[in-house]
């Protein structure tokens, strides 16, 4: 199976995913990109417009429509060459995405398995008000569905809010929101996490040291994510915060609600990205029109955006998930819920588009792929839940892991074919869910019986 990275139509077709709080500050990145864009403005413009044009119709195959007449021929030639180049590097991009997703999942699974705190039920988010401790199955199901509806509507409201803010150029507000949420994530969650890990391993740490460590961690994180920093460090931080966010979700979402939410999120993702009036799509198109990158901090990017003579940073936006709603957090702060996490929770869904950056063939290849942080979070939630709740333990976890990776491969393949923003969640989550339930119920008894007789298949 080969997956290809495609040039995406718009520069920013964010596949918004619920990402964690971090929203990247646009300024540093746009300045890079703007500079680069200015240098190759003309052709890029035409190309982008063409791409944008093609992006707008849902079933556009790469390079389908030529809206501009100016450079169609050259563009198609370019297109072909770029396509080949893209395809050649397709496998590399897939691996560039595999590695962070794998790392995030490993961190989450390791934490779940070792730290007790994240599997205890200590209350619920205020976004999921209905409890699941009801005696009857029907009631429980009803409650989880209601929880899901509430959660999804919160997400939709937040997404629309963010899109409106973006449309009306309230950049300061958005940035402030994102900074606040990333602050909270970096400091508070890390503090809780570190506290729990230290408790588990019975390591004592005094407050001054703790303060120093967390302060350093948080400060460097803020700088790295919102401003400039070494790429690997930024990637590491993004993975960390995705893992933290996923852990919080795993802890605070009740069982059945979590699964229903995962399913509903994929459907929402699908619709929000592909429907013409979907909020994420509008976000992408708006960003496209303005030639701006979408909040880089909400996106995991696997390569630097700056490259000498970089051509248009095409982005094949991958799956959008729910946008991060730092804004929601702000709203929350007004009514402090008993547990801090509540306020922070669902707020942070950042739209994280993933896009490969493609370069002109003559220039140095520096392709990168971008994936929304929300994608990371939800993949990790799936695998973490599998690790936490499945009685077949590692088999189920492993099965879900492979399923998610294969879903990612397939999505990237589709991306290569369609060359526009695609949701990263649906395929992977569907596979993951199928494999989780089937492995837990079907494969586990089989393997257990085999193992007890020491038979091998």
């Amino acid at each position, binding site marked *: *199976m*080969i*997956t290809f990275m495609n040039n995406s139509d718009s520069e920013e077709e964010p596949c918004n995913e619920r990402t964690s709080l971090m929203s990247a500050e646009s300024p540093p990145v746009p300045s890079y990109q703007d500079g680069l864009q200015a240098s190759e403005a003309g052709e890029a413009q035409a190309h982008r417009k063409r791409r944008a044009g093609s992006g707008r119709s849902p079933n556009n195959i790469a390079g389908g429509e030529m809206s501009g007449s100016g450079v169609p021929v050259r563009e198609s030639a370019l297109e072909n060459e770029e396509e*080949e180049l893209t*395809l*050649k590097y397709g*496998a*590399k991009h*897939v*691996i560039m995405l*595999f590695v962070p997703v794998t790392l995030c999942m490993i961190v989450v699974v390791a934490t779940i398995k070792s730290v007790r705190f994240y599997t205890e039920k200590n209350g619920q988010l205020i976004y999921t008000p209905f409890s699941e401790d009801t005696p009857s199955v029907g009631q429980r199901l009803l409650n989880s569905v209601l929880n899901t509806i509430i959660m999804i509507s919160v997400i939709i409201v937040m997404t629309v809010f963010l899109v409106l803010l973006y449309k009306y150029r309230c950049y300061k507000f958005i940035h402030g929101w994102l900074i606040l949420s990333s602050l909270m994530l970096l400091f508070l969650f890390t503090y809780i996490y570190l506290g729990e890990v230290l408790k588990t391993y019975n390591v004592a740490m005094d407050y001054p040291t703790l303060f120093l460590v967390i302060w350093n961690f948080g400060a460097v994180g803020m700088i790295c994510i919102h401003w400039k920093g070494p790429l690997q460090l930024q990637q590491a931080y993004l993975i960390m915060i995705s893992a933290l966010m996923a852990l919080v979700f795993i802890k605070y979402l009740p069982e059945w609600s979590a699964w229903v939410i995962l399913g509903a999120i994929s459907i929402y993702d699908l619709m929000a990205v592909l429907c013409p009036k979907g909020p994420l799509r509008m976000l992408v198109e708006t960003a496209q029109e303005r030639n701006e990158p979408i909040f880089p901090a909400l996106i995991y990017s696997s390569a630097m955006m700056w490259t000498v003579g970089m051509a248009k940073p095409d982005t094949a936006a991958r799956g959008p998930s729910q946008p991060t709603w730092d804004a929601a957090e702000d709203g929350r702060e007004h009514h402090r819920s008993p547990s801090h996490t509540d306020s922070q929770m669902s707020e942070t869904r950042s739209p994280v588009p993933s896009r490969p950056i493609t370069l002109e063939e003559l220039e140095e290849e520096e392709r990168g792929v971008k994936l929304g942080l929300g994608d990371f979070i939800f993949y990790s939630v799936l695998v973490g839940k599998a690790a936490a709740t499945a009685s*077949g*333990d*590692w*088999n189920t976890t*492993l*099965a879900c892991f*492979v*399923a998610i*990776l*294969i879903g990612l*491969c397939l999505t990237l393949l589709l991306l290569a074919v369609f060359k526009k923003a695609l949701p990263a969640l649906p395929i992977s989550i569907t596979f993951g869910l199928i*494999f989780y339930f*089937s*492995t837990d*119920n*079907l*494969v586990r*008894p*089989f*393997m257990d*019986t*085999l*193992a007890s*007789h*020491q*038979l*091998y*298949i």
Partner: protein
Amino acid sequence: PAFGLFLFTIARDPLRIIILIAGAFFWLVSLLLSSLIWFIAVKASDPRDERLQKGLLIFGVMFSVLLQEAFRFLYYKLLRKAIEGLVALSEDGCSPISIQQMAYVAGVGFGLMSGAFSMINLLADALGPGTVGIHGDSQLYFLTSAFMTMVLIFLHTFWGILFFHGCEHRRWWEITAVVVMHLTVSGSSFCNPLYVGSLVPSYLLMAAAAAWAYLLSGGSAQNLRRFLLCK
């Protein structure tokens, strides 16, 4: 050792990693289907009848083996198509990865997945406190499981090569040989805990398969000698 194989030969090339994961996925799907069948069979039968359960288990194992081989074949078909796609898209008209490499990687994928599923719960339990074989079972449970898993992983790798080679050159006897070998190895595990009956034949078969695969891949006794003498 299998993990070492992975590190040294596969982790470099991203395309191989994708093929590996896809191979693991195919094995997983075959396992899923076979356990589905077994589950249905068990539910439909009387849970108290020991012999019937054992018979069903044996049936499940055999069926699973057949399904695995069927999925290997499907995977082969998929890889053929993929190679054509790769060739069409590459610059100089030849595929960046040959079918033999794919066969090897696919075999490793299958093997890793099956090994992981066989061993990982065991390993997790092994970390905890306890005594091996306290209820009168063999004390060598962990050791033999480890060896058996390793031999199975290697066997999957070799079978992958043999199988693909057979499909390539349309030699049906090679394919049937692989299937028969797989069935034999699984069948021999029925002799557990009489470990002599299962480990020894498995290792012999593995040596045979290794030699066969090596010859098929173009090796020869001369190459081997040169390699060993580090020329």
